[in-house]
């Protein structure tokens, strides 16, 4: 075994790219050096370097192998071809039996040679998300200029350079020199191993391990917090980022001027966290404390006085800039800004934010009664929801959209439900963000997301495996979570149909056109579907909703399916029976997600019981038999003829199936427990049927009748869920 150490020392690497770069380095090096079976791979990352240590074999052992060639009596050209392929000479082959054979000998490769040959390739194809050229004419790129390469094997330099043909590779060669802290310890020094590197860099004021830097920052924060009797808002993401910005963290605290403590906390938060990477503080009573904590990268010669003063000034300037917008924005009423939204593009193919607000108002008003919200309030909230996009503050700090709208609405004495809805209609912004619970907020939040889904489906911008640029999966998950967590009962298909109609109108000429081929396919796949060509020449397909006289735009069904798919993914994430959901949804595209989930839970519970598991097995047996026999003579959809029922088990099953008609009614009435209990009653007769009755009876009439009976069992069960989709 030999100890490999590799360090790539560069100008400052963006903090967010460092952890990934260390992972990539480990993966690519392990692949490139697989011949040396690297083990104990360890990596480091920081602002100016990524590094790797590993144990590798001292060499790739010599190997010999035997290659069989052409037959000895084959034409001479065959042998010549074989020799060329293996770069061998006539002298190296011998005859063995009827064949020519070649003893191939691969020499041992010393680790240092293999590393020197492989590492430049790893560096050349390193997957930085964005990389750059610098200096002279070399086309070797790195995330920022690469300045030094340390590559050691048991303390000895593994010599290589980055030349490539006429490209000078910036004249970079591997060596044993690295550099410490930019200001505290300028200049290069030698290192001999990973351990030596770690120790010497610490002496040169660099903590190479991100975990060490985080620990120093966290300890400093705790110390300062104790001194000042404050608590620091826990922020692991910020801690990670700050640890990627400093090599020698020195935590410090600065004061926030009292006159700025009355700014809304969200505004202070953005300036501090996003712009400055400061940690926020709270006092004992949980209120914001007039302190901020940050980490400098030096032990300043004045103890940090100038650094603290400087950072306090920067924050003062940021806060006074924010105050300027805060004061200015409140001089105009929020509603007076609504007309300006007609000049703000939502999407090049989907018109303006002003038009969008019009759609949101109609949708919110329709949703309102379904979620116990006042229609007038929902309408008002939707009208004002986007108005803060044209305020100075949101122009400056886009992440404050919604938040500022709420403040400005409160300042204008709008209803507090309206104000909250303006802020919360964007929620949930992520998987851990809470969903709105106030009815008016729910109405606008749903309107916002349904319109978003409808709009981008209407211009055929659906998420693909490659990406989801318009965050439609997040929007769909938002809809699902709002419905689930509030237990809402919505007529989702109708809402989607309205949203789709409005979205098609907004998209106008950009609306996804229905090609004849797609129309034909849609008609084939959707019994009862109709192709409509409107006055606007936009073709669309509508599909009847079973049990109603409604015809719904096919796009609305597609969005519903998209929602169901996200729901399935969510259930899988929770460890729930996502296959049961798919089975239940397949039995009838229910647009009431709450009902869908209750039904799924009931079926899951049923399948967890003895009766359920056994019935599922029997169902599969029935379905298998039907599939095989239907291939011979088509479906057996007719009702069985009771006069042909010969065996007692047959008759019993028939009676159960007739009784089972109640299942459909119970499901319709949402009496799922009773429906499952009714289903359980099928188990005994079905088992008995399979035990005592031969389905493929010699008499064709009897056989047909029994297949019809089985088909009825299947149909009865399929009303609850498509059991063929159940896994396991």
């Amino acid at each position, binding site marked *: 075994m030999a100890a490999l150490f590799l360090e790539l020392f560069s100008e400052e690497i963006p903090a967010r790219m460092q952890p990934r770069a260390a992972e990539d380095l480990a993966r690519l090096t392990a692949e490139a050096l697989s011949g040396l079976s690297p083990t104990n791979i360890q990596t480091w990352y920081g602002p100016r370097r990524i590094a790797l240590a590993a144990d590798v074999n001292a060499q790739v052992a010599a190997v010999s192998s035997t290659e069989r060639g052409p037959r000895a009596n084959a034409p001479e050209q065959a042998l010549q071809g074989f020799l060329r392929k293996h770069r061998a000479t006539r002298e190296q082959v011998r005859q063995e039996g009827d064949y020519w054979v070649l003893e191939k000998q691969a020499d041992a490769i010393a680790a240092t040679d293999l590393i020197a040959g492989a590492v430049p390739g790893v560096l050349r194809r390193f997957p930085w998300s964005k990389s*750059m050229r610098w*200096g002279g004419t070399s086309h070797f790129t790195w995330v920022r200029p690469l300045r030094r390469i340390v590559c050691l094997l048991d303390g000895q330099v593994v010599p290589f350079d980055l030349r490539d043909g006429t490209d000078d590779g910036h004249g970079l060669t591997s060596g044993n020199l690295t550099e410490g802290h930019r200001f505290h310890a300028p200049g290069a020094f030698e290192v001999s191993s990973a351990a030596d590197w770690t120790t010497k860099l610490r002496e040169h004021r660099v903590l190479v391990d991100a975990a060490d830097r985080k620990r120093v920052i966290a300890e400093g924060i705790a110390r300062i917090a104790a001194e000042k009797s404050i608590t620091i808002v826990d922020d692991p993401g910020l801690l990670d980022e700050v640890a990627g910005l400093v090599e020698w963290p020195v935590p410090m605290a600065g004061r926030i001027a009292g006159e700025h403590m009355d700014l809304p906390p969200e505004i202070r938060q953005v300036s501090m966290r996003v712009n400055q990477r400061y940690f926020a503080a709270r006092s004992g009573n949980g209120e914001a404390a007039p302190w901020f904590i940050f980490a400098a990268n030096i032990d*300043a010669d004045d103890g940090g006085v100038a650094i603290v003063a400087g950072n306090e000034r920067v924050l003062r300037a940021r806060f006074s800039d924010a105050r300027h917008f805060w004061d200015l924005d409140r001089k105009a009423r929020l509603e007076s800004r609504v007309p300006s939204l007609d000049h703000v593009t939502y999407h090049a193919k989907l018109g303006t934010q002003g038009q969008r607000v019009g759609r949101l108002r109609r949708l919110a008003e329709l949703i309102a009664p379904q979620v116990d919200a006042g229609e007038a309030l929902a309408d008002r909230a939707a009208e004002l929801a986007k108005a803060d996009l044209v305020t100075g503050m949101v122009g400056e700090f886009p992440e404050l959209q919604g938040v500022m709208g709420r403040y400005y609405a409160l300042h204008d004495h709008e209803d507090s439900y309206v104000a909250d809805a303006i802020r919360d209609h964007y929620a949930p912004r992520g998987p851990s963000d809470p969903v709105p619970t106030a009815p008016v907020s729910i109405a606008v939040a749903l309107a916002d997301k349904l319109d978003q889904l409808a709009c981008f489906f209407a211009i055929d911008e659906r998420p693909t495996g490659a990406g989801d640029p318009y965050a439609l999966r997040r929007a769909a998950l938002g809809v699902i979570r709002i419905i689930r967590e509030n237990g809402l009962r919505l007529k989702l298909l109708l809402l989607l149909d309205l949203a789709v109609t409005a979205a098609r109108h907004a998209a106008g000429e950009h609306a996804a056109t229905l090609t004849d081929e797609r129309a034909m396919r849609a008609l084939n796949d959707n019994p009862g579907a109709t192709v409509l060509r409107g006055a606007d020449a936009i073709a669309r397909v509508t599909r009847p909703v079973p049990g109603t006289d409604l015809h719904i735009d096919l796009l609305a069904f597609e969005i519903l399916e998209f929602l169901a798919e996200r729901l399935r993914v969510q259930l899988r994430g929770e460890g729930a029976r996502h296959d049961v959901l798919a089975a239940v949804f397949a039995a009838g595209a229910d647009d009431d997600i709450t009902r869908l989930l209750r039904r799924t839970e009931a079926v899951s519970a049923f399948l967890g019981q003895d009766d359920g598991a056994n019935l599922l097995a029997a169902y599969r047996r029935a379905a298998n038999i039907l599939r095989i026999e239907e291939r011979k003579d088509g479906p057996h959809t007719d009702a069985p003829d009771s006069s042909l029922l010969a065996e007692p088990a047959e008759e019993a099953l028939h009676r159960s199936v007739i009784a089972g008609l109640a299942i459909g009614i119970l499901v319709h009435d949402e009496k799922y427990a009773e429906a499952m209990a009714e289903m359980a009653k099928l188990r005994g007769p079905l088992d008995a049927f399979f035990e005592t009755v031969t389905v493929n009876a010699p008499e064709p009439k009897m056989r047909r009748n029994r297949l019809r009976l089985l088909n009825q069992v299947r149909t009865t069960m399929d009303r609850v869920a498509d059991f063929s989709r159940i896994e396991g």
Partner: protein
Amino acid sequence: MTERPLSFQDLILRLHTFWSKQGCVILQPYDVEMGAGTFHPATTLRALGPKPWAAAYVQPSRRPTDGRYGENPNRLQHYYQYQVIMKPSPADAQDLLLASYRHIGLDPLRHDFRFVEDDWESPTLGAWGLGWEVWCDGMEVGQFTYFQQVGGIPVTLPSFEMTYGLERLTMYVQDKENVFDLDFNGTGVKYGDVFLRAEREYSAHNFEYADPAMLTRHFADAEAECASLLKHDLALPAYDQCIKASHLFNLLDARGVISVTERASYIGRVRTLAKSCCEAWVAGDQG
């Protein structure tokens, strides 16, 4: 900073002295209105082609939409950028830059200097590069870019470009909270004495009185003139027209008469001019 802090003009002189010693050509401001020092032909055009080049200059930068009638302590519609370009980028570019800050009184063992990720892109110039914001005690005191592409053309030799916001930097050095309070010359003249009236009047011009119909005409004229000059391979005069068009677009923007769709189209038109000028420059002898 034990002695009296530098005045605004002394700070500029120090930067000139420093970059002059690094072999830069010290140029005077370009005499066409522009939004940023990068537009100066000494940067945009000279960044292209294989000839080495190093220059430093002050460039008045006009950002019509940033005008606040002299009422905001941090925002100006006219301010000064100090611009340095070195091609090819020297291996010690970062060290040079830090030395320049030391030269104006900011010691990196007392002040916390950092290089914070910043990808630079100019859609109007069809240019991009990678680099950092340079932070001093949490404040951005400069922008450092390694140019990768200009005028839609990948660079032959990557340049290092450094832009200092002179007012903001001097405010830091002088510990002032209001730009108009800056000590301009060390003998009693303040920044406001020189520029406050101009900020008020130009803000009114930019936001209220500039004639949109006339600006639109001038834009079309500049665009046409640029194209016609390019027919005669006059890259530099053509590029002046491109800069003018860009500034006219900024004025139209400040007047609030450009819709969002038009905006994208204006930016595209300026980019087309910039690309054509850059191509014409590269086709010539670049001297």
